[in-house]
């Protein structure tokens, strides 16, 4: 059975209908990416899934005992609140120090326990959030624009980490992202959301769907161009002069890996 299944979900916030008639399921081990323009209801949808927001109509059913690892879009911890990384990972459930250490290791930021959360860089903090989500031993990892505020190399490294985590934990991954070129390639399925589900399917299918093109454009500018270049040409393609193509190359795995190591030093 599906981990989470949503039928005919609608959400009204005040006078505005943010989501209408959304059907959605995610299965064990699946990687699903939700794409959509600003204000398309992506975050609202995730907030419904984690139970932070009650739908106006429709139903959300979660598998019994479902464990959710949630990585929020941003977490502004007030500077008046002193908090070490180790303590943060022990909220709300107390964790064994060995478990905390293992989770930080998995997330690619070992030995950060004694540091104050306020002193972390954006990339480190995002990984600490990932470590906290992993401590739930999640069936599903939900990430809401988890790489906002990271540069391209940093976010590519972060998604690389997510893929490793999925291999280790076998959990499903549901993420929302603007960084289509990075994220879509790694997804089993892409859902294009704009108040309702415009289209969904494999990354290739969605990228060529007219609904998706209507939202993100078909020109050479924008993320779609990057994404399509990656898929329409092999990386060995000769004589490509499109500047956006070389941009796509900078996200190739070999480069990502170097960045990844550089960041962890």
């Amino acid at each position: 059975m599906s981990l989470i299944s949503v039928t005919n979900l609608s959400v009204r916030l005040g006078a505005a209908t943010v989501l209408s008639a959304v059907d959605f399921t995610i299965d064990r081990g699946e990687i699903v990416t939700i794409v959509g323009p600003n204000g398309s209801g992506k975050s609202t949808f995730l907030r419904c899934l984690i139970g932070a927001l009650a739908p106006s109509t429709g139903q959300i059913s979660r598998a019994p005992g479902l464990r959710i690892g949630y990585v929020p879009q941003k977490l502004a911890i007030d500077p008046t609140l002193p908090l070490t990384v180790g303590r943060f990972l022990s909220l709300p459930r107390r964790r064994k120090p060995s478990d905390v250490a293992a989770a930080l290791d998995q997330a690619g930021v070992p030995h950060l326990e004694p540091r104050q959360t306020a002193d972390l860089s954006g990339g480190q903090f995002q990984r600490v959030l990932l470590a906290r989500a992993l401590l739930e031993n999640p069936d599903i990892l939900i990430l809401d624009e988890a790489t906002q505020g990271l540069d391209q190399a940093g976010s590519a490294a972060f998604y690389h980490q997510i893929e490793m985590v999925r291999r280790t934990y076998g959990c499903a991954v549901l993420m929302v992202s603007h960084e289509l070129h990075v994220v879509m390639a790694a997804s089993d399925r892409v859902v294009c959301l704009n108040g309702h589900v415009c289209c969904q399917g494999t990354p290739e299918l969605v990228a060529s769907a007219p609904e998706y093109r209507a939202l993100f454009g078909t020109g050479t500018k924008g993320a779609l161009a990057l994404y399509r270049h990656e898929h329409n040409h092999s990386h060995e393609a000769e004589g490509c002069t499109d500047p956006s193509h070389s941009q796509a190359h900078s996200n190739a795995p070999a480069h990502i890996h170097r960045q990844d190591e550089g960041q962890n030093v």
Partner: protein
Amino acid sequence: MFDDFLLRALLAGFGVALAAAPIGCFVVWRRMAYFGDATAHAAILGVALSLAFGLPVFTGAVAVALLMALTVSSLSGRGYSMDTLLGVLAHSSLAFGLVAVSFLQDVRIDLMAYLFGDILAVTTGDLGVIWGGALGVVGLLVWRWQALLTTTLNPDLACASGLDPRREQLVLTLALALVVAVAIKVVGVLLIAALLLVPAAAARPFAATAELMALLAALVAMAAVAAGLGVSFYHDTPAGPSIVCAAAVLFAFSSLWRGVRNAA
């Protein structure tokens, strides 16, 4: 054994300090300074109603403070501009309270005692109410500590972990109303917010964890109570304001220390 008025005052102050300090930390972390103010000011209306209907002051103060706190926290979820709204509620509830008190001509009440506290007149019965309320608040906080801290960090994070942020908000609201009600006798409605904020702010530079900050804030508040009462006794100054002054001086030292440390 509590027949010495100074000893009773000290114990009353310690009780309030113990409960106010950790709540004060949450008020600081969640940026609810005005929220504390509004709740405290509303309590004077509760005092007036209690006196009019012959109820214990504590009961009326808790009820109205709780009502105000619930109103504010339910409005805060609906996208109102909180700064203005809280300002309006805080001051208008105080004004309504003062007007309500003025109707009670046949009841001889010393308004100043409720506005600025009357810690030197604490009775053994008051002590029971104060410590009962304070221990209730501390118990509530210890019980919900992990959940409260998670909710304070991020309500969505709490949701994903299976907590209900609204319930935790309610716990805090209830605790705040209780603290306000027990603190009236000690510092009065006008200075309760100070007793919440100042010790927590003074403790911040010395704390590496939230728990340590709450503990240090309680110690700062107790030190302020002792020092304030001392000054009040020897120099015949009003006790409640003296306690807040002492806390403010401790805050100033703490800030100086932080400045020196950061410069080094």
